[in-house]
């Protein structure tokens, strides 16, 4: 039946007593994530996007407002613990989420916490290693892996727990281009296999790979649109300190020069074909 995550009128701050409400990390956010969606949440540094991520898997508890899974409010510690199996999270720094001194043992860590039997672990571990492309590195020590491999190991550790949702909190930002590409491809594959992907990032180019984009700025949701809609409105991204895709910049510059192009561009393809006709 999957996992539907709902935030309703959520406000959050670490120190709600000492900070005035307009500075809270998350302000009046209502969002809903259906099973199988591929969503990007974009915002610049300090926009509140990481706090939002931690609210979605119960690591943080809303200061105000409701957090529901499939319509059921999550309130107790037991609820939140059970949620960890369904909603996994990959963090930014690949180094600081690997617990065990070898690849297989690290994947086993989450399963051990869930009380999964040894036989089941032996069955699942090779499967997830294969899935993230780390087969053959079972006995490697984490510090001998590249950044991208470490991040894939972290993903394998989550996948072994068979989650419905995976949140990637800036998980590509510390990787080199190869590592980054690999993780993005993996996100796409996981999405196709039915897992909900929530990708938190400050990079517009990566964000536009998702089907749905949510822009967060100073703790508030500014936009929540399909990636096509948002692409057409992408000039707006600039005011929130985000990258505007280069195709949109070109489109705007040419229109300013009097080129007859559609007012809204939904994709780079459209721009290319319209340019071609107008030349």
């Amino acid at each position: 039946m999957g996992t539907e995550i709902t935030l309703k009128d959520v406000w959050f701050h670490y120190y709600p007593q000492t900070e005035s409400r307009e500075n809270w990390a998350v302000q009046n956010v209502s969002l809903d994530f259906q099973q199988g969606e591929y969503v990007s949440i974009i915002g610049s540094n300090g926009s509140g996007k990481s706090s939002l991520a931690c609210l979605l898997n119960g690591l943080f508890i809303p200061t105000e407002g409701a957090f529901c899974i499939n319509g059921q409010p999550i309130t107790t510690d037991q609820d939140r613990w059970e949620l960890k199996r369904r909603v996994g999270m990959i963090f930014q720094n690949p180094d600081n989420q690997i617990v065990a001194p070898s690849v297989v043992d690290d994947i086993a860590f989450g399963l051990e916490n869930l009380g999964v039997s040894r036989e089941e672990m032996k069955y699942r571990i090779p499967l997830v290693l294969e899935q993230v492309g780390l087969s053959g590195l079972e006995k490697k020590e984490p510090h001998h892996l590249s950044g991208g491999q470490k991040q894939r190991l972290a993903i394998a550790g989550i996948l072994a727990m068979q989650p419905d949702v995976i949140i990637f909190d800036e998980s590509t930002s510390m990787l080199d281009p190869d590592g980054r590409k690999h993780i993005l491809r993996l996100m796409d594959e996981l999405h196709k296999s039915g897992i909900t992907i929530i990708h938190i990032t400050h990079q517009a180019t990566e964000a536009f790979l998702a089907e749905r984009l949510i822009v967060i700025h100073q703790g508030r949701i500014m936009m929540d649109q399909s990636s096509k809609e948002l692409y057409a409105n992408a000039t707006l991204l600039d005011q929130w300190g985000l990258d505007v895709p280069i195709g949109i910049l070109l489109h705007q510059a040419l229109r300013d020069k009097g080129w007859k192009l559609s007012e809204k561009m939904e994709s780079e393809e459209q721009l290319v074909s319209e340019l071609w006709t107008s030349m």
Partner: protein
Amino acid sequence: MSRIVIGQYIPGDSFLHRLDPRAKLLFVFLFFFLIFLANNISTYLILYLFVAICILLSQIRVRLFLGSIKPVLFIIILTSILHLVMTKGGAALLTTPLFTVYEEGVRQAAFISSRFLILVVMASILTFTTSSLDLTDALEQLLEPLKKIRVPVHELALMMSIALRFIPTLWEETEKIKNAQLARGANLESGNIFKRLAAYIPIFIPLFLSSFRRAEELAMAMEARAYRGGIGRTKYRLLQYKGKDYSLIVIFLLLVIMIGWLRS
């Protein structure tokens, strides 16, 4: 990484590599007591012979063992010299205005340095052929009975395993910070002890800060993977004694008997 670190695991597939880590750990532990039973040339020869066989069985190059002796070489030489000049007894072999070397001194010096050498090499054999993870596991399982008297064995073992996991990471980090401060002209090599300690402050502070940051992030990541202490946890790694592990008992008894018989 700097020069070879003592206690570094050298991957391999020798007889010694394949032994159960608990068996190895217990054996080496008991062997240390055995060393102190040796008290004459023949008993020491037996120990040396045994260590030599172990080195051969480990299929690890002798040079690496020499490397592990290096850091303690100074202590070995120092204690040998002390014994050489301080111990009296037997015939005088060499007389100088300052000290006299007696036969007994030479014997003592040879025995003491042998003891050190055998100890260090044996410990290296254990760590060279056993991954630190296996060692942690072995320790956890050997200490299991202590759970009954409320020693948090699981937590201690997890801490140790996390420590093992992060030692190389922190080591790299230290090197990075050190390089950064060296590039800013830090002088770590001259001056008296206080000056040198002070010179290390710009390295220690960032290292502490980053370790705290790591610890915090790791705690979050562990929580995100449903960690909540030892409750209802299963275990992936399973240690199992096999036939060859029991053979260690026989080998150990054999050594005890031979040394007991030959010692004076």
